[in-house]
Structure formats: C-alpha cells, structure tokens
C-alpha cells in the first residue's frame, strides 16, 4: 500500500488529506503552530494516521510523497517579520527599490483605494538604506561589460553587510540576465568570507528584463529563503525520525510542486501557494469530472478569489504584487476582491448601498457572531434571508444570532434607506452576487475567454451560498460545489494530487525576425537547465513534459503576450509561425483590427514550464447509487429569499449527509452540509454526482 499526503498550512488551521492506491481517502484538521509550523504538520499527520487506524510511523513508512503548501513565507513578507537582507546592486541604481517606478504607491490596490489619491502611500522600505550597497560595475543591454566589477568595493560592501548580521544577501545588477558574471563573482566573494550565508542572485531567481521587479523578487527571495531552509530542514528531520522515506514536496505559486531539497534556492516561488491551492484542487477534481475549462471561485471570510483553468491547466500571470511591490514571478493568476462573507454593507455619503471592500474579518466577524461586530455583513444578510440556518452554521459548530443580524441591518441599512430589514438583506445579497459576477466576468474576459465555455467551481465557506446567484448571469453551463470527502480539505486534496512543476526563463530582447538558431539555442539552454533541475528533485517521474512560450510584443509596446511555442528544433518558418500565433492571440485578447504588424515585433522573454508527473495519482472513491428517494434527505422547510425574481418563497431544506449519488433536487432548495450551505435557486437543478459533489444546472 502506498499513500500520498497533501497538507495545507493555513493561518488558522492545518488541513491534511491522505489517499492510497485503493482510492481510500481521509482528511484531518489541526490548529496551525506559527512558532514552528512543522509541529502542526506532524499533529495533522498523527490525526490522519489515527483515522486510518495506523501508527504515524506505519503511515509515513508507506507514504511515497507528502506535498504541502504554506502561508508562512507570504505571512512573513506581509507582516514584516522576514529575514534581514543586505542588498547589493549596480552603482547609481540603489534607489530603484524605493522609487518603485512610482507605481509602488498604488500597485495591487483596489480601484476605490487608488481613487482616494491623497491618502495613498508607498509601503515601508524593503531594505533599509544602510543595508543597500552600490558596487562599481556595469554591463549594457547587449551583455557587454562597460565597467569591470570593482572587487575592492564589493568586498568592502560584503564585509559591512556581514557586520550588520544579515541573514541573506540579495544581489541584483543591471542586465545581469544578459551577463551574470559579476553576480556570480560577488557570490564567490561572499562565500569566501561566509560560506553558509544564503545568497540570492537575480540572474538565477528571475533572469528577466526590468530591474525593479527583478530586484524586488531577488530581495524577497532572500527574505524568505533562510527561514524556509530552516523550516524544511526541521520538518524533514521530524518526518525522517518517524520513518518517512518518501519525498517531501512544497507547492509553488505557479501551481506545480518542488522538492524540499531544492525549494530554498527558489524560495520565492513557494509564496502564493496557499492562494493556488483551490485552483489546483479544481484542476484535479476537474480531471475526475471531465471539466477542462473551469472558473475556480473561493469565497471565504474576507475575500472572494477567482482563478481560471483552461484546457486542464491553471492560467498563469508573469508578474504578481505583494505588499505593493511588483515581482517577476510566474504564478497562477488569482484575482481578489473584498467580498467575502464578512464584507460590510454600508451607505455612502450619497445614500447608496455598498458592499465591501472593508471586512469584519474573523474577529469581530459578522454581527450574528455576537463577538462585538455591529456592522451588517454579507453573512448577516444570508442569515436574515433564511439561507443560513443559525443553528446549523458549520454543521452546528457555531451558533449565529439572527436577532443581531437583523438589528445591524435595520440600524445601518434599512432605516436610513427606508426599507424593510428583509428588503435590505435581499439588496445586500444581490449586490454581493453582482460584484462577484463582475469580477468573474472581468477575469475570464480579460484573459481572452468566454464564460459560457466554462464550468464554475465554488468553494470556501460562503461560496456555495452565493454561487447560484453569481453564476447565473455569466451564462456558465454547470456549477460544481465540491462536497463529499474532499470538501473540508479541498486545498489539501489539490496539493496531494499535484505534480512537480518547474519554470525556467530568460530575457533576450531582440527584434523580429529572430534567427531560428537563437530561439533554438535559448530554448535548449532552458530545457537543459530544467532537465538537470528535475533530476535534482530525485524523484522517479512517470513522465516529463515541457511547454515553451515567448513573451512577445509589438515594437514600442510595453505589454507582452505570452505566446506558446511548439517543442523541438524550430525552422525559420516556425519562427514566422510563432509570430502568427502571437497575432492570433492578440486579436483574441483585444479584438479584430487592433494589431499592427507593420510596427514590428520583438521577442522579449523565453520561458519553459516542465512538469514531472508523479508515478501514481490519487483517485477519489465512487459512491454507491442512492437507494432511498431524495425525500429521505429532507430536513424541513423554511421561508427563504434565494433570488430577486422569485422573492421570498417556502423552501425545502436538505441534509447533505443523507443525500446520495444520483439524487436530484429542484430549486428552490437549500442544502445544508457540515462545511457549508448551498442555495439552489428557483431556476436551478441540483444533482449529487458519483463523488458526492453537488452539481447545479440552470434552466
């Protein structure tokens, strides 16, 4: 028997998921332990073992892989507890990270915050000035050395940084991706005096043009690297002590995993893993359900997250923003708005009803939590509308105070707007749905797709309450609410089933037509690097695939479109084919007649994604067909408001635990599951599939 474990270390809970080659699955939950996350991981594995009626050692001994995602790195960046890093850069350009191209004042903020111009600020500096060292050296845009590295100055800078007791040194020099010699030499100089010091080189971490995001990425890599290295060492020790002989994998923001041995070198790639867990879970569930195009939506307490899966792969972006700093990092594209269950409904000065982006969060939480929150939230509206059952929230683990929801909505919304409490709640609910719908549409359309070609997956505590509402407008055919065995640990399930994914890229900006030999040579170099990186994972993959792309743009345009390129040796004709594909993609994204080839093209950055497939993949257990009729699952009836068209109606409530494969429910209905509540709107049909998921169709 062989097991695979998936572990998702969240801010509050560590979720774990185990599956074996017999399609047996169990999940577990235990509190996260921020002082040393490894302990929480072991606790969760202990619980998995006990559910499987095995000792922890017996479970780990027969575990092939453990894949885990962690918020630890991201949290340390956001909360400013990251390691102290020294930064070495080209003389004259040390301010790049404080100038932030001017965009640092608003990058990553929502439109409401950006509009409030006089209140915007840059984030605190990434590195204090005394830890920023400029060295005399220069390389030009062709990679030619303009000024040799002044090693005397470099040694002095290194000494000063080490005297400051830095935990890592980040080195990012201008044009180092064209010629990394000076960066490599600086690392040698560092290791001459401090052989163990963590060194982050921009030519390795992200060899891509644009020095500001490259420097930020390199510095942040240095900020999270030492801690990740220490944490993974300790976790590996703990696991080995419990006779784990398999491979420990870490999830990356790109949606693929990487072995714990090699992860620290590219530590920055592991941030964002917690955001992508849901998208990766959707990919894996989609494989079982036959969905290749999926809109993954996760509505939690504070945010509403949207990711896309196209043709079975997560849609990625080449840059991301953390704490208003821009990073050059290929990551699964996840868009967010502050429209989670805790989003606050309020009235602006014009007397208009608004929902979010401010959130009551987990504390004090919605008014109905009775934890001191007096602002009405989306969750409070859900309670007033009869969708959420105050006595069966999270399966009855938390009692909600309907009277407090009513009071908050009455005082803050209904009375000022001269509406009834129920009307006000219905309006909050509908605005929340419309905003979610706008964001989903924007994500899908701006990526160049049509929502009608997608299935929508909805999870997170508040997602299923609203998904029928926000999906109906989009024209999606199918909505899936993952329930059953994967429900409580959807992200952990996603992790368990993830393959190893590595990315290599390099900028080599050049005008089109680029000679085929340059393109071939560049890709061969990247692929060779990936092959050796894959080997370093020390995993016997069942197979390996490589996918290439080039970021191309029209000359003088700054926006680039990542254009897929076929594998193998390319001819001059193929190069022209690449430009045709770019133009097709461009037209798809921006409409007919907007491309202008006469302006010329430029190939900017080359990138290869490698996937190493793990030898076995978990499969989910198929449920037996329902024997009893669907009526047996009826829990009761109550008056509820599920959509604007039907208003308040008598609604049947089902107990998910009693539903079985094949059961069909006609809306209006409410399905109460231990982890969430699903609103089945009047024009929707719900069906329980063979894995226990609830699948909605609209009439």
């Amino acid at each position: 028997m062989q097991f695979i474990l998936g572990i998702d270390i969240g801010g509050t809970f560590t979720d774990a998921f185990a599956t074996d080659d017999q399609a047996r699955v169990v999940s577990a939950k235990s509190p996260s332990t921020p002082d040393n996350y490894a302990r929480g991981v072991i606790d969760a594995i202990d619980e998995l073992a006990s559910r499987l009626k095995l000792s922890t050692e017996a479970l780990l001994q027969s575990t092939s892989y453990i894949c885990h995602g962690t918020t630890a790195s991201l949290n340390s960046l956001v909360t400013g507890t990251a390691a102290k890093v020294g930064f070495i850069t080209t003389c004259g350009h040390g301010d790049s990270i404080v100038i932030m191209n001017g965009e640092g004042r608003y990058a990553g903020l929502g439109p409401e915050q950006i509009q409030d111009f006089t209140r915007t600020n840059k984030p605190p500096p990434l590195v204090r000035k005394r830890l920023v060292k400029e060295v005399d050296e220069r390389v030009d845009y062709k990679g030619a050395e303009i000024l040799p590295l002044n090693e005397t100055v470099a040694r002095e800078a290194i000494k000063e940084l080490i005297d400051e007791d830095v935990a890592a040194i980040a080195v990012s020099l201008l044009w180092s991706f064209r010629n990394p010699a000076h960066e490599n030499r600086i690392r040698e100089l560092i290791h001459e005096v401090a052989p163990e010091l963590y060194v982050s080189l921009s030519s390795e971490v992200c060899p891509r043009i644009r020095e500001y995001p490259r420097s930020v990425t390199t510095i942040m890599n240095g900020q999270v690297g030492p801690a990740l290295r220490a944490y993974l060492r300790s976790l590996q020790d703990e696991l080995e002590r419990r006779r784990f002989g398999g491979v420990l994998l870490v999830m990356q923001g790109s949606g693929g995993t990487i072995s714990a041995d090699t992860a620290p070198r590219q530590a920055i790639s592991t941030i964002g893993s917690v955001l992508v867990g849901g998208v990766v879970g959707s990919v894996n569930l989609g494989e079982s359900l036959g969905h290749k195009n999926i809109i993954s939506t996760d509505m939690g307490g504070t945010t509403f997250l949207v990711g896309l899966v196209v043709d079975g792969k997560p849609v990625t972006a080449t840059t991301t923003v953390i704490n208003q700093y821009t990073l050059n990092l290929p990551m699964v594209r996840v868009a967010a708005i502050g429209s989670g269950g805790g989003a606050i409904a309020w009235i602006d000065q014009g007397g208009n009803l608004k929902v979010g982006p401010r959130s009551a969060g987990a504390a004090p939480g919605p008014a109905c939590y009775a934890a001191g929150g007096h602002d009405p939230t989306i969750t409070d509206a859900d309670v007033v509308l009869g969708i959420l059952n105050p006595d069966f929230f999270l399966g009855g683990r938390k009692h909600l105070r309907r009277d407090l929801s009513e009071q908050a909505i009455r005082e803050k919304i209904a009375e000022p707007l001269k509406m009834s409490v129920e009307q006000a709640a219905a309006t909050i609910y509908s605005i929340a749905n419309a905003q979610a719908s706008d964001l989903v549409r924007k994500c899908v359309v701006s990526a160049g797709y049509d929502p009608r070609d997608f299935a929508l997956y909805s999870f997170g505590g508040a997602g299923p309450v609203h998904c029928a509402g926000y999906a109906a407008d989009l024209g999606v055919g199918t909505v899936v609410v993952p329930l059953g065995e994967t429900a409580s640990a959807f992200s952990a399930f996603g992790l368990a089933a993830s393959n190893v994914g590595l990315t290599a890229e390099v900028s080599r900006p050049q005008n089109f037509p680029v000679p085929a030999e340059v393109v071939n040579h560049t890709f061969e170099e990247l692929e060779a690097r990936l092959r050796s990186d894959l080997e370093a994972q020390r995993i016997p993959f069942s197979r390996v695939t490589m996918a290439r792309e080039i970021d191309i743009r029209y000359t003088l345009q700054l926006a680039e479109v990542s254009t897929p390129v076929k594998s193998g040796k390319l001819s001059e004709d193929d190069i022209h084919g690449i430009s045709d594909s770019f133009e097709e993609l461009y037209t798809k994204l921006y409409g007919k007649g907007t491309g202008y080839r006469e302006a010329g093209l430029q190939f900017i950055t080359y990138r290869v994604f490698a996937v190493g497939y793990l030898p076995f993949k978990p499969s989910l257990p198929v449920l037996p067909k329902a024997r009893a009729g669907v009526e047996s699952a009826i829990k009761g009836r109550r008056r509820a408001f599920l959509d604007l068209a039907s208003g308040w109606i008598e609604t049947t409530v089902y107990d998910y635990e009693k539903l079985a494969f094949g059961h069909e429910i006609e809306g209006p209905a409410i399905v109460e599951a231990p982890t969430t509540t699903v609103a089945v709107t009047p024009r929707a049909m719900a069906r329980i599939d063979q894995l226990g998921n609830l699948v909605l169709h609209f009439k």
Partner: protein
Amino acid sequence: MIPTIAGAEKFAYRPGSRADLLKKIPAGLKLHSVGRAQVAKLDPLTYEVIRHRLWAITEEMGEAIKRMSGSVVVTDCNDFDCAVMDELGDEVQVGLYNAQLCASMDMAVKWTLENRAANPGIAEGDMFLCNDPWVGGGLHQNDASLFAPFFWEGELLGWTCAVAHQVDVGGVSPGSWTPRSENVFWESLPTPPIKLVEKFQIRADIEDAFLRRSRMPKLLALDLRAMMGANNIAQERLTVLIRKYGADVVKAVMYRAMDDAEERLRAKLRALPDGTWHAVSYQDQAKSGDRGLHKVVLAMTKQHDRLIFDFRGTDPQVIGMINCTYAGMRAGVLAIVMMWLCGDIPWAPGGIERCLEFISEDGTLNNCTFPSGISKASVGSTWATHNVAIECIAAMLDMHPTHRENAMSVCIGTWDLILLSGVDQHDNGFVTMLCDPMAGGLGARADQDGVDTGGGPCIPMGRAADVEMNEFQFPILYLWRREEIDSGGPGRFRGGLGASSCFMIHDSSTRQMGLVVSSSGKAVPLACGTSGGYPANTSYDVAVRNSNVRKLLGGRRWPRELSDLGGEFEYLPPECDTQLGWDDVYYTNWQGGGGYGDPILREPERVAWDVAERKVSREAARAVYGVALDDRGQVIMSETQQLRRELRMRRAGRSGASPRVAEVSQSGWSRIDDNVALDADGRSRCAHCGTILAEGGRNYLDGALVRRGAPSEAGPQIRGEPDRFVDQRVTFRQFCCPGCYAALLTEIVPADETQYRTKTIAPRDAASVTRG
C-alpha cells in the same frame, strides 16, 4: 502680439447648458433620454449593480488601451483616459487615468453634436478623431481623442471616448513640443473632429491625412487602433448591459450617477467653511530666449455648496508654447477637484462640474485664443492651474477636522519634459518622451509626509519605465537614477522627494541625439508649501559638455556626482532645444512636493529617520529643521533645542526679542491651519503662542513679521541662480508670527510681487466648522 484670426471663433468652444445644446442639435438626430420619474424609481440594487458595471467598463477600456497602445507615455505613464457619456456628452464615469483629459472629452463631444450632426452626420459605427484643444478632446495637440456615438434602436443613447497622448503629431520639433514656437502654426496642426471611422471601418483617406504629419506614423496608427479597440469593447459591454436591463434603466442610472456625484460634492462643500483663498503659480520662460516670468493667479471662493474659480489677474497669453485653452483651464481645475475632493465620490465629471464656476478673461495664459502656441499646454498653463487650485483647495480642506486629511500640498511643480530623438541602436530613427519624471514627489499632507517619488497631481496611476527598458529601446546608458536628497519641501511634514536621472549616448552610429528640455520651476520653484511649509526643489537640468565620462568607463570607479565628470556645465534653460554629443552627459532633476507646516516643528525623530534613509542631508537637518544628530544618527536633544532657538532668532532678525513660549488656552478658538486660529472674537492668533496676528475680518498675515533673503534661504533644495533664466529678481519671503517666529507662509517669489497668497474666511463659518 498674437494676431486674431477670423473664422477661429467657430472652434473656441464653451460648453453651455443641456437645454442650450439641445436647441443646436438638428431634429434628424434622435436622442435617447428618460424623465426624472424614471430616475426616481430606480431601486438601490439596480443602481449599484449597473453603476458598478459602468465603472468596470471604463476599467476594461483602460486595460485595452494600455495593452494595445504603442507609446510609452500611454502604456507606462497612463497619460490617457476613457469615458462613458450620456447622449449629450456629459461624462457618467471616467477611468482612473489622466484626470486632466476628462475635462476636455465632454467638450469635444458637445462640439461635435453641434457641428457635425447635420454634416457629415453622426451615425452608428462612426468614430470621430479630434486633437484641437480649442474644441476639446485634449489639452495640447499630442492628446488625440477618438469618440464614438452609441446607438440603441436608432436613438443616440450615449458616447464612449478614449484619448491618449501621442509621441509625435508633427510640428517643428520632434515630439511636437516646440520651444521655438511663436504660435500654433509652428506646432502640430490642430484637427477638429473628423470622422475617422465610418460603418465600423477606418477610412484610409482620413487616416492617412492624419498620419502624414507625424514623425512616427506607425506608432500613431497603432494608437488609433488602441483607442478604437477600447471603444469597441465599451460598446459591446453596453449592449449586453442594455439587453439585460433595458435602455431606459441604464440611462436612468447614468443620470443618477451624475446627480449622485454632484450631490455628494455639494454635501462635502457645505461642511467646509465659506471663504476665499488666493494663490499664484509662475512659469519661467514661454519659449527659448524668453526671460519672463508668467503667472497664473486664482481667487477661489467657496460659497455654500459651490466653488467659484476666478482667474482674473492672470497674465495675458504669450508668444511661446506654454498657453492653454479654456479646456486646459477647466481641466486644470476639474482634475484637482476630482483628485483632492472626490477621493470617495464617484468620478462622474458630468455631475461634479455642476458645482464649479469659472471666471476668466479670454486671451490670458490659461484661456488663450487661436493661434496662441499651446504645444506645452498640459504641463504648462494647465499644470500651473493645477498648482493654484491645489493651494486653494488644500488650504480650504486644512480647516476641517476630518477633511483636512485630504489637504495635500502642491505635487511635482511641473512636468520635466525630456524628449530624445535620433538614430537608435538598431539604426532606426526614434523619438521618445522619457517618462522618468512620472516618479515626482507628492506634497506633504496635514497629517503625514508626502510620498517620495510617488507620481503627479493629475494621474492616480503614473509610472516610470525601468532603466533597463529605456536602455533596451533607446541608445542611452544611465549613470544613475536616484531620489535627490533634500528635494522634498521641508515642513513639519516633509514633501515627497523628487529624483534625478543622468545618462549619456550609447551605441548610436550617429554619436549624437536631439534633446528637447522643457521645465519651468528653475527660477521660481513651483511646488510651494502649505501652512508655512517650504517649497520643494527647483528643477535643474545640466548638460555636461566634453566630459571625461568615456575615460572613466575604462577605469575602476563609476561616476557618482556631476563633479566627477569634468567637462563644462551648461545649465539648460527652462525651454531649450539642443543636441547631446558623444562626450556629453545629461542630468535632469525634477521636482518634489511642497512641505506642510513649519520644519522647526517637525518631530526630531522623523528627521533622524530621514537622514538615515537619505531623504534629508545632515546639513539640511541642522540648517532647515534645526535637528542635531550624533555619529550614530541619534537625536541630540539639547543641541536640537538650541539650534531651533537660533533659527527662530534668525527669523526675528533685528527685532531680537526672545521667542514667546506661551501655553495658551485655545478654548473657543477655531483652526485655520497648522499655525493660525481664530479666537472667539474673530481675531487671528498664532496657534502656538497665542499672539494676535490680525483683527477680525483682516488678512491674518497683516501683523506678521516679514523676512526676505536669497532663495537658498529656503534650503539646499533651491539650486541654480534665477538670473540665469529670468530678468526679474527672485526672493525668499517668509511671514512669521511676531511672537514665537513660527513660519506662517514661506514662499519664493519675484522680488516686486504683491502678496497673492492670502485667505479670507468668514469667522462665523470657521468657528462652526471646527466645532461641528
């Protein structure tokens, strides 16, 4: 003398009321509209959902333009905007891009309704191109706009519009900004609205006619398509929206969005005190060879729920390129009203502008007549209009207990234009505007410092390109790009730093390139302070001729300062058109933001942080802030107190009395700004020591001690000598409390200037504001 041209009056547009406009539109053009009842019956849900969707549409338009455009100015600096408008061109929602432009788009559409409906007609599938700032649709000829009528069932329901800065639209200088300009005939030819797109297709003849004038026709063509794409996207989305909700409901939301913005701005204005605020902004030089100082002056009056902007007293239009049209003056105000007063109010200019009134004389700097030169308008007299509007609005906000958090001082006093042209490393000709000054310093606020290298006053999302992208595209090599220490205006809260770039030619076969530099603020700094805060730096451009830089490159040390470069310094004047040779190095230092409050009142710990982070030099810490630091950068308190006392005494001058230190009870007083309050009897008093400054109803500066000195008295940020560039003598002038010598107003002005910067507040109003 600028001639008058018969026939030009057709284009000198002034938007009137909706009723007037309706009378001028031929009956053949069917307009869609709804009544008040339809607006009144909108439910909150429908309103919010559709309004949100309209905003999302402008965001999508903006994204589309950015991704499609070929000009760095657009893709990087966000110097463009887009709008959804109603049937009469009133703007319902504009994008969060260049807020200047929104005040001109409506004018272009309204002019088109009046002048194009009969001939050649306005029909479905049309788009009109315009770059005539007298008509609207942009502030100078580089702003080309493309606007499209949106028809529903045969009726004109609304318009969508995109406008973007084009790198070159012709004229005698590359980049179309012309320091040699005498008048508009030296510049790009303005094009009033022409039908570029007909039946959804670009008309090749019209397009060619427009492209032919440009040095970069391909780039211009690409941008026309970007704007066309944005309009297409907007119209597709509007169609979907109307199919679902119906044309009448969508139109009702459009009207209500404007009403809502108007009502909310009026409510905010009602909460603010009534009064009149005065400000002035100077531009040194109107063209190459000019040695004048040209001023825009403003008296802004707030009465109940409206703002009146009175520009009388502004200098007459000049020969040169710095003038702006009526659209530019209106834009200069509206952009700042949106950025400073509408942070939390929907950007529906069609409603916001109803709260504003303008008084201005034709033929003046910021309301010039054809054919005055306007190629620099957007950052010439429009920017000067921004500066005076900011001064007045910030001073008004400063009086209010909560709204004062939006009181931000003047930001980067002007745009420092850097236009490069020549032959690039691929042997292609090129022209580009370098957007590094997009990282300008923002003004200090009443409760915190300004943002260092944070942007500009009219573009919420400005952006400078990475050095590597500039070096990849253009034949230049940077010696540095850095924040300039001390460039932020000193104050109790410091203005944001400006920055500098320094570069040379690299890898160009011709070994030289054209350089157009245009930046006022060299004799008189333009980012002045608020509430006694000091002005930010002067702008400063130097060409180091025949430097030894190429020898340095073979050595061991990279140059760090201009003084490392040898050669001869040529201090480039505000308006200049020159060449950069193989051994030359160009250095440009753009402006920071003005300070807030008196720098000697700044918490010493903040100064220590600034010194550690190289925002402020040790010298300025002592000389301007009066803060002494030890070797480790820690504050030495006793010496700091001593230094600050000395600074006060220096202000006291010959009067020599010790500074008064009175702890006065301020009960019943109401705040005017950081230094001044009105007591219960309406007298102006120093808020620090209680000294009476003026009797009720009098200018609070009447009783102040006035001190003058060389401009460098304001601090090391004031670089360069004014007499290099202008004939008038320029002086530092500070109004201080006669009791404790706190700085009440700190400015750098022409020596013979009458005093413009004052405020008149109804005492009753001030009191009610502060207590309320």
